[in-house]
């Protein structure tokens, strides 16, 4: 069985006498697909060491298993073909590049791991692919569920309902009600459900919490090569669900009656619980900088690396913050953007960022650090067009200006006083033209961002992007 967006597809069958698991046992990988009994069945399971013990005395067995694995991998119906097959979109989004509501909608879909296609109404070939009349200008963004309804300016709850995300609790009473479905909430759900408790986790946005937006987490136990936040969230979510936990999304808690152990949800629903676990996580602190709120989602993004990186192709990205989240975002953006500059109020990254990450940043030619610098203002109308940065020692402010157009081919100019780009992670640099800045707070409360001290554990990442 292959699962995509929670929809399972049968990709093959086995009859008595057949084996399965030949691909993982041959390649040393995990199971790429699941195997489910279609009827009551008996199977034998051989651990790798027992299989290899047999294979060592009976080479024909190893040859046959290898041949089967190659067969299963090949062909359009094989695992290779399945892996190469692009996932089928479940929704189509129609909205403008710099529309904050469209950015929010895309972010919501990304965070809930919904495969979707994004069309921009001002791109002629995109508009042609939108079946039917385009919505009125004030009705963007629009969302069309594949083989389903079309809605304009949808709210998160409506989107969740249309896409069959779980928003309603199955029961009125639970052993455990968990507030929040970030890593801590999902862990609580896994442990509770695995003990046979009736568990529900209530999440106001999407499973994974703040960690779900992280482009890479390299110090999480059990992932020797690191793991992306959305992959970690996806695995945890699958684990919790498989063990029987319910995960509700787009629901907020309006009140908790601790004495009665009642959890009040928006809309008036009340869940009765024997135990309530608070796993609320963190909220990003917004930068109180002129222009930032107005341009949020229009070139300025918080914690946006995974969902926005592909949209910064060739742009100059500025990341505000000096913690690990900033570093990981810089690494991720650097594979898409023309340049990435970390704006750091302190003298360098050493006090706030892990050593391994500083070393990785130093190996990327298009990443620079501008130390002793803070963000002073953001400018733009429909989208971010420029940012002002201030030297914290001299107070001198310089503007990183775009060409004033949202066109990617618009001209650019180097801002006054701009120094050559540095490859050093501890040096200072700026880049002309397009700017796109991500605010990323740091680890353990020790990080200073360009504007203020980051709160413990929070990893805000505001991205500002001004197209060249």
């Amino acid at each position: 069985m292959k699962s995509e967006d929670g929809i399972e597809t049968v990709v093959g069958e086995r009859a008595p006498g057949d084996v399965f698991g030949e691909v993982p046992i041959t390649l040393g990988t995990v199971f790429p697909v699941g195997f489910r009994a279609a009827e009551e069945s008996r199977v034998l399971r051989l651990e790798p060491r027992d299989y290899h013990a047999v294979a060592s005395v009976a080479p024909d067995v190893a040859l046959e298993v290898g041949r089967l694995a190659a067969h299963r991998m090949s062909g359009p119906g094989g695992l290779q073909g399945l892996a190469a097959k692009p996932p089928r979109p479940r929704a189509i989004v129609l909205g403008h590049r710099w529309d904050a509501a469209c950015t929010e909608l895309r972010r919501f879909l990304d965070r809930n791991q919904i495969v979707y296609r994004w069309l921009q109404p001002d791109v002629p070939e995109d508009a042609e692919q939108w079946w039917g009349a385009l919505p009125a200008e004030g009705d963007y963004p629009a969302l069309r569920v594949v083989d389903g309804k079309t809605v304009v300016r949808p709210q998160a709850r409506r989107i969740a309902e249309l896409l069959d995300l779980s928003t309603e609790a199955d029961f009125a009473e639970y052993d455990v009600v968990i507030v929040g479905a970030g890593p801590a909430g999902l862990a609580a759900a896994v442990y509770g459900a695995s003990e046979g408790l009736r568990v529900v986790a209530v999440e106001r946005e999407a499973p994974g919490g703040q960690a779900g937006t992280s482009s890479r987490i390299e110090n999480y136990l059990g992932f020797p090569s690191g793991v992306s936040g959305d992959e970690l969230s996806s695995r945890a979510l699958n684990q919790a669900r498989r063990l029987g936990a319910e995960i509700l999304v787009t629901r907020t808690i309006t009140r908790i009656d601790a004495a009665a152990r009642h959890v009040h949800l928006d809309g008036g629903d009340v869940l009765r619980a024997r135990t309530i676990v608070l796993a609320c996580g963190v909220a990003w602190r917004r930068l109180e900088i002129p222009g930032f709120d107005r341009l949020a989602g229009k070139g300025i993004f918080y914690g946006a690396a995974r969902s926005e990186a592909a949209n910064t192709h060739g742009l100059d990205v500025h990341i505000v913050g000096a913690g690990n989240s900033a570093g990981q975002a810089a690494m991720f953006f650097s594979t898409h953007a023309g340049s990435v500059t970390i704006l750091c109020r302190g003298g360098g990254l050493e006090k706030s960022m892990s050593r391994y990450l500083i070393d990785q940043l130093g190996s990327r030619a298009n990443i620079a650090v501008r130390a002793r610098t803070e963000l002073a203002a953001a400018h733009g109308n429909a989208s971010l067009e420029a940012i002002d940065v201030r030297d914290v020692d001299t107070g001198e402010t310089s503007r990183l200006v775009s060409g004033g157009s949202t066109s990617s081919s618009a001209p650019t100019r180097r801002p006054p006083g701009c120094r050559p780009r540095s490859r050093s992670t501890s040096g200072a640099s700026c880049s002309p033209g397009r700017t796109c800045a991500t605010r990323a707070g740091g680890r353990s409360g020790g990080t200073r961002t360009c504007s203020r001290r980051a709160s413990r554990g929070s990893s805000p990442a505001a991205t500002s992007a001004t197209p060249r």
Partner: protein
Amino acid sequence: MVTAAEIAGITIFAELDAADRERLSRAAADITLAPGEYAANPGDERALFALLGGESRR
């Protein structure tokens, strides 16, 4: 408990000699699955399974 005779019924193990079939039958875990139950989930660690009776879908 998996028997040596059942091991012989598995295509890839059909040519094993009696001693190896016996050894394998002792090493193999015997698992009964209800309809809809998973023998392996995506992401599970590697192992080799053989269907003794019933039907499995991947």
